[in-house]
Structure formats: structure tokens, C-alpha cells
């Protein structure tokens, strides 16, 4: 498992160096480690990059062959919900976020979704809120994803008899993993999307088929293994270090 995970990462590094202008320039002129791509050039922070350094550089993250330039802050939501909450057809996933531009696109088949701005629940989003309420009344499952305060606002806007039926899935930034959290939670980053979730074992599990985590001198660096464009490799985010879950045998981030 660990070797296969690592091989996937090495493939992304090689391909990014060969085809993506940003990494070509960064790693050729400065360097990187694990792996080195230019012998003797080890770069800064092992070649990892701070998210702030990518602001305004999306054009440089597209491979030479071309590709999309949109950043999806909900990338990976579907697979992580399916893995950790067994979200199945008939469920409504409600994303509560003032900044979410569009509904998630990678939910399992048959799962519906909606987006709510918590400040507009009594205004422009009242109709969407009605949909959520109807869903709960019918006894269908509603999974609400968002920040703690945003989820509180949604609960306050729902009828008291229904609010407790919502499955709350608070979202945590990678630098906020030490704070206590309920039975469900996700790790998400505005640039990288959803990186993993809280497992039943209480550990923060990485969405390892899609995300690679590596320790660098500047902290943990995340790589999206399946997003071809814009390519995001070794992006520094939050604190903690990579580890392995002794129960599941899969990668985790330890706060």
C-alpha cells in the first residue's frame, strides 16, 4: 500500500516537472528533494510551495497540453463522504459556506446536493432551505457540510423538531486539526479541496487514492494525485506530520 501510494506520487512529480511550467521552473532553478529532479539541487523546503505563492499563478499550473484553470474548494468531497459517512443514493448533501461558488461535482450517483449561504437563509436561499426541510420531513438523510458557525446558523434556521436530524460534518482547515470535533469531520483547504476525514478510529485519514502527504522542513505538504490541471503538488498546508493508522493501515495526518 505504502509503496503504491509513493509510486503514484513519484509519477505526479515526474509528470509535473516534465509538463507544468510552475514546477519546471521551481525545481529546475531551485531544486527539490524526495525525489531530486536535478542532481545536486535540493531547493527550499524540499521543493514544497506555500499556498500564498500560488496566488495568481493558476496559468502556470496548467500542463503544456492545456487544461482547466478552475480551483474547486469542494474537490474530493464525494469520495471522502462516501468513505467516512457511507453516503448513499437518496441523501442530500447541503454545503453551507458563504464562499462556495458551485455545488460539489463528485458525489456518488443518486446523491443530491445544494449550496447555502448562511447569511442568506431567510433571503435568497430560503427556497433551498425549504428543500432541505422537505427532505428531512420525508425522513431522508441530510448531510450538512460547513464551518461550525455556518452549521449552527443552518440548525437555527431549521424547525427545532428537524434540526437534530441533520448529520453535521464540520470542515477543519489543515492547521486546525487539534481542536476537538464530533463524530464526523473533514479536512479541507480552499486551494486543495477536501483532503480527508475523521475516521471511526478518531484519526484524521488522508483521502489516499487522491491525495499524497509528505513531511517537509516547512511542514506537511499535500499533492493531488488525480487532478491533472491545475496541477497541485507539494502544497504546504497546516501543521502536523504524516503517519499510519495502526487499525486501518492507511495514511493519516497526526496533529
Amino acid at each position: 500500500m505504502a509503496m503504491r501510494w509513493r509510486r503514484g506520487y513519484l509519477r505526479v512529480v515526474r509528470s509535473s516537472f516534465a509538463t507544468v511550467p510552475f514546477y519546471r521552473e521551481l525545481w529546475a532553478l531551485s531544486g527539490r528533494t524526495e525525489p531530486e529532479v536535478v542532481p545536486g539541487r535540493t531547493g527550499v523546503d524540499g521543493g514544497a510551495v506555500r499556498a500564498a505563492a500560488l496566488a495568481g499563478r493558476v496559468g502556470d499550473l496548467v500542463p503544456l497540453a492545456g487544461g482547466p484553470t478552475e480551483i474547486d474548494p469542494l474537490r474530493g468531497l464525494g469520495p471522502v463522504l462516501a468513505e467516512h459517512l457511507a453516503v448513499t443514493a437518496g441523501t442530500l448533501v447541503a454545503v453551507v459556506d458563504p464562499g462556495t461558488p458551485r455545488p460539489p461535482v463528485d458525489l456518488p450517483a443518486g446523491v443530491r446536493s445544494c449550496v447555502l449561504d448562511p447569511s442568506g437563509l431567510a433571503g435568497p436561499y430560503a427556497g433551498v432551505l425549504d428543500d432541505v426541510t422537505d427532505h428531512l420531513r420525508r425522513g431522508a438523510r441530510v448531510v450538512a457540510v460547513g464551518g461550525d458557525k455556518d452549521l449552527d446558523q443552518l440548525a437555527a434556521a431549521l424547525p427545532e423538531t428537524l434540526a437534530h436530524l441533520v448529520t453535521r460534518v464540520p470542515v477543519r482547515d489543515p492547521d486546525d486539526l487539534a481542536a476537538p470535533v464530533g463524530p464526523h469531520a473533514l479536512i479541507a483547504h480552499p486551494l486543495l479541496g477536501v483532503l480527508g476525514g475523521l475516521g471511526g478510529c478518531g484519526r484524521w485519514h488522508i483521502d489516499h487514492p487522491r491525495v499524497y502527504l509528505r513531511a517537509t522542513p516547512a511542514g506537511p505538504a499535500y499533492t493531488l494525485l488525480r487532478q491533472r490541471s491545475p496541477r497541485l503538488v507539494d502544497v504546504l498546508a497546516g501543521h502536523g506530520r504524516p503517519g499510519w493508522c495502526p487499525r486501518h493501515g492507511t495514511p493519516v495526518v497526526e496533529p
Partner: protein
Amino acid sequence: MTPTAEVLDPRTDPEPSYWAALRARAGLRADWAWPVLRAQAWSGRCPHLVTVMHDADGPVGVVNAGWVGLPGRWTSFLPVGARPRFGALHVRGPGSSAVPGWWMAGGTRALIGYQRAMRARLGPGCLATVLRQAVPAELSALGGRVLLSRLTEPIWSVDTAGMSGVDDWLRRLDKKRRSNLRVIGRKLADRVTVTITSGEAVSQAAEVTELLRGNNAKYKGPMHNPVPQLTGYIEELTAQPDTVTFRYTDPDTGRLVGVGIALDHPKTPVWRTWAMVPVDDGGVRDLYFLHITRLIEWVTANRRATLVLGKGKGRLKSSVGATATEQYAALLA
């Protein structure tokens, strides 16, 4: 003594100790600075080889060439250690297609020695050498070595020797263009702020790169897919003391609306790059003409004899006082 060839790969070879002196002697512009060559070579799809010819007294020539051939690459950069199995040396200016990619103290005929040395170095797969931006006198000097030559786009340049300033230049243009440029100058005086810098890595390099990409995209086609301008390359180029960067910003928002880069030279600076926000996306109409005026202002204030405007837009360049010089591409046997 037959000159010997030192073949350098700027990606991995360090800057030679004699490089600054050679550049000054040969009059090579900022695109030949070693950090700029290195950034450019890493962003290539084929090897970029810089060859220095030496005789007993030191360097006597330098040639920049792309080693273009098969297997080729369309959607990836050149892998470390890879090279074509067979192909041709494409001798061209490293940063500007308006100037030749070679300098030989002994004249163009010395390129024969270069070609011989490169064949020995690259092997039988080196089938030919293609020279760009050659003028007829240079082709005559090469004599029977020229297998084939073709006229290519002319280079346009403005003779600024003896001009006292922009007004002097405007007086030499026809009445319609003169009046048009004066109107544009007045109209845009409050709409854009121009900042001219030299030897200072441009602070909005990512924005500049984005503009340049937008400009390059206009020329992209099924047979022409240029590698995008890379931000690090632009930073290195604009950091050179002999690069002049003109940044045009909106005075109200600070948004970059246009950028021009010129490569300085004691006699013949070259206008290397121009890009602007399209008018439909909030760009400023006629900014191109304002930039030409600013270039002339800069060139005349610094007493340069000729401003090279590059290829294309012949009618427009002619209307601002530029004249054409015939250029040839030549295949050397």
C-alpha cells in the same frame, strides 16, 4: 590555429569566467546573460546549446542554437539528459527573433568552423545548420556552403541617430500619423501611468507573464504551439541592468494594462516584447502607439542610433518612421 569549440548547456553548465567580457565585446544583449539563458534553456522542448569558439588568445565567437529534431516534443519540456537522435541546429537569437544568434570576431565565414565542430560533437545525426536573420552579405561570405536560402520577414527599425527627442521624431512622420500620435498622447496622459525600470526584476512578474501569454495565444496554431513565457524567465530578464521594462498601469486601480520590454545596446536597442490587456477586457485603446512614443523618447534621451522594432506590422511600423531590412534563412550544408 583552428579554433576549438566549447559546447555549453546553460541548464547545467556554470557561467564561464569570461562570459561578461565576451558579451560586452560581442555586443550581446540581456537575453544572453547567463541566468537568463539558464531559465530559458530549462523551459525548452529541445536542447539549447551555447557554443563558444576559442583560439589561442581566448574566445573569438559564440553561437546560440536549438538542437531541433526527432524524437520531438509537443506537450512536454526536454527531459534531463535527453537529446534528438537526428535533426538540425537552429541558430537563432536566444530572446529575440529580430537579431542573429551568432557573433564571430573573424566574420560570418567562421561559422563553417562552428558547423564542423558541432557535427563532430553531435555525431552523424546533426544533418544541417539553419541560420536565421542572415543578410545577403553574410550569405555571400559563406559562399558554396549555403545549400538553400529563403527570404523571410524583414526587420523594421527606426533610425534615431541625431534625433533630439520625440518632437523631432514626430516632425519626420507624415501629417496624419503625427497628428494621430499627438492626440493619443494627450488622450492617454491621465488614463495610464508608465513606469520605466532597468535592472529590477519586475514586481508583477506573474501578471506580466499572463499578459504575454495572452499575446502569444493570438499566434498559436496547429503548427505553431510556442512554449509559454515563464515567470522565472521574465524575472531574470527584467533583472538585467541592460533590460528596460515599461509597465503601464491604470492610475485608479493599479491594474497592469500593458507591458513592453526592450533590450538595451550601446547603438541598437531591440524592442523585444509587447503585450496588453485586450480592449474588450478593459484594456486601453491605442496603448501600443503610446508605447512606441515612449520607446522613442527613451532611445533619443539615451542617444541610441537605431531602435529595432522587430518583424511584422510593416505598414504600421513604416508609418512611425521605420525602414525594412531584408532577412534570410539559410541552410548550410
